[in-house]
């Protein structure tokens, strides 16, 4: 049985070209980049080259790249770092209802501790944040706006550049032009498909990681615009300009930089290919009765399809697909550690009934047109079987 992995938003495999670039840095060039000898210099050079390559892809300065141990750490550093370094400027933070847990959980925790006042913006039924809502929520004591670039569950792409421009305009309009609020965006899901030019996006902080772009897990970065003040989360030897201590993960950093470079260099060709697959799967699955597309029809990542099937529960469908060698995820509560279904799908206004039956299909480099046809072929039977087994027969109003 051919295995069809359609869970690339969870994580990707490591591209063989990335692995090859990393290999010398495990047992050959292994010294500590901080060491003042020749092997140390070689390791340092690898980190410097990686940083330069990333800076080019982000159109930023090399010293604005801070390596971390992944996307979650980068989000934590951006948020906690900003809040604690800028207490005197205020404690109001704006975010959205569909952020990744690495943003929302951090902010809700800080709110409980009294360290922030939090505004959580709603999204429309496509999962889109309104620039107007952001502008209206801005206050003189707002120190941070954190809005993800593309959503991990439904793939909706946010108007980051427009929001960035609105924030810049607002800063300039203050009595004394302000550096606040900082604008942070989690771009982990976007990095493989979208433009990351920080000057076009007008972001001050940008989270990226390796594990969603065919790079290694456990490595990521935070872009920190010059002049942005962050309190470090991790103290020690003062690496990464004192913002993030700890001996550099040299093979990880080399792998991440290689992965980012490949993703950005190849994205146009790959996006065109994936978009065709995406639209074919969307059309094929929506042909099944009582279904609904979650997310935006066009402003959506080219590798992402999220569909709700009424009257069935997502985890059961995931397991039946698993038995066919097709690997996907669901927004159902049963597949999570909580009793609530996906906060993202609920935020788009879908009922709990609809959210429990949501399934996410995310493609990657190795996904072929035949794979998509296979899913379109087996899905109707699985849905029919589970609906036959189900005592509920809901009205389509649950998809209203």
């Amino acid at each position, binding site marked *: 049985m051919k295995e069809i992995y359609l869970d690339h938003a969870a994580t990707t495999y490591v591209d063989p070209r990335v692995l090859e670039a990393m290999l010398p840095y495990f047992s050959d060039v292994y010294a500590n980049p901080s060491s003042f000898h020749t092997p140390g210099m070689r390791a340092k050079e690898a980190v410097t080259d990686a940083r330069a390559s990333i800076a080019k892809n982000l159109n930023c300065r090399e010293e604005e790249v801070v390596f971390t141990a992944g996307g979650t750490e980068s989000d934590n550093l951006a948020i906690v770092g900003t809040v604690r370094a800028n207490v005197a400027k205020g404690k109001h933070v704006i975010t959205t209802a569909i952020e990744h847990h690495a943003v929302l959980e951090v902010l809700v925790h800080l709110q409980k501790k009294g360290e922030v006042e939090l505004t959580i913006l709603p999204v429309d039924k496509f999962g889109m944040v309104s620039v107007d809502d952001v502008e209206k929520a801005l206050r003189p004591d707002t120190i941070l706006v954190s809005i993800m670039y593309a959503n991990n569950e439904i793939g909706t792409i946010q108007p980051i550049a427009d929001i960035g421009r609105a924030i810049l305009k607002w800063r300039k309009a203050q009595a004394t032009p302000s550096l606040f609020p900082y604008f942070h965006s989690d771009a982990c899901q976007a990095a493989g498909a979208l433009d990351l030019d920080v000057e076009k996006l007008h972001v001050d902080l940008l989270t990226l990681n390796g594990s969603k772009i065919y790079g290694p897990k456990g490595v990521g970065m935070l872009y920190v615009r010059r002049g942005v003040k962050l309190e470090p989360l991790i103290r020690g030897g003062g690496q990464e300009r004192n913002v993030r201590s700890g001996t550099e993960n040299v093979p990880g950093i080399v792998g991440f930089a290689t992965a980012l470079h490949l993703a950005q260099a190849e994205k146009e060709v790959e996006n065109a290919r994936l978009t065709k697959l995406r639209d074919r799967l969307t059309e094929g699955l929506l042909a099944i009765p009582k279904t609904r597309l979650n997310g935006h029809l066009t402003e959506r990542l080219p590798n992402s399809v999220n569909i709700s099937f009424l009257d069935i*529960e997502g985890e059961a469908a995931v397991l039946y697909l698993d038995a066919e060698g097709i690997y996907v995820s669901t927004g159902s*509560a049963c597949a999570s550690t909580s009793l*609530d279904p996906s906060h993202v799908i609920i935020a788009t206004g879908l009922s709990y009934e609809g959210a429990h039956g949501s399934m996410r299909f995310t493609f990657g480099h190795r996904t072929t047109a035949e794979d998509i046809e296979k899913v379109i072929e087996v899905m109707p039977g699985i849905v029919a079987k589970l609906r036959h087994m189900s005592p509920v027969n809901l009205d389509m109003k649950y998809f209203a």
Partner: protein
Amino acid sequence: MSDQPIITKPSNDARQGDVVSQTKDKGWFYTDTVKEHFFHPKNFMDNEETYGEAAMGMVGSPACGDAMKIWIKVDPATQKITDMKWKTFGCGSAIASTSMMSVMVTENGGVTLEEARKLRPQDIMERLGGLPARKVHCSVLGDKALRAAINDWYRQQGQNDNVQVEQGRIIDKVLKITDHDIEEAVLDGADTLEKVQAKTKVGTGDPSCIPEVENLIRFYKDKYFGHEQGA
């Protein structure tokens, strides 16, 4: 499979053996028995039209992620369940639990209604070879639906004296969770709302009952474990 006795009283062993720690998870998420019942469900209701007159019980709602409907046929002479059919909206463990329950009440000539009423989620879980800890709440609705069906059968027979309302007072109207269920959960070590919900799902059907649930948790904690310092 059929040589295993039906457990009518949850033993301490069953309680300790019924939950698989997540940190020890290896291999597939569910046991082979769960998989067998999930992929090849036994006794599920294929055609309701041929079963129209049977006694029926339903519990849950699709909004909270699980809903189960159960039909039974009973021999009036022996009061034994001769056939059970079901439909379940829910995850793998909910489907497997209902399927296993249907086997347990009909095997070896069927159990009596009295025995069936004593069936506990822990018994079903044990026959399934255990469920992952965070799946326990998915298996606790089948036995409630079964008891509702048994009441329905007695009503059909005009034996209203034999109808038993759920032990205790209903707290969550949608899921038919009672104060007794919450007491059991607290006794099993659940000391917060989240932990009680992980065992019972209480409040996901009817969120308006949550303040009352929190009061009950506090009450039973006090009753069985005394005041905690600083609490």
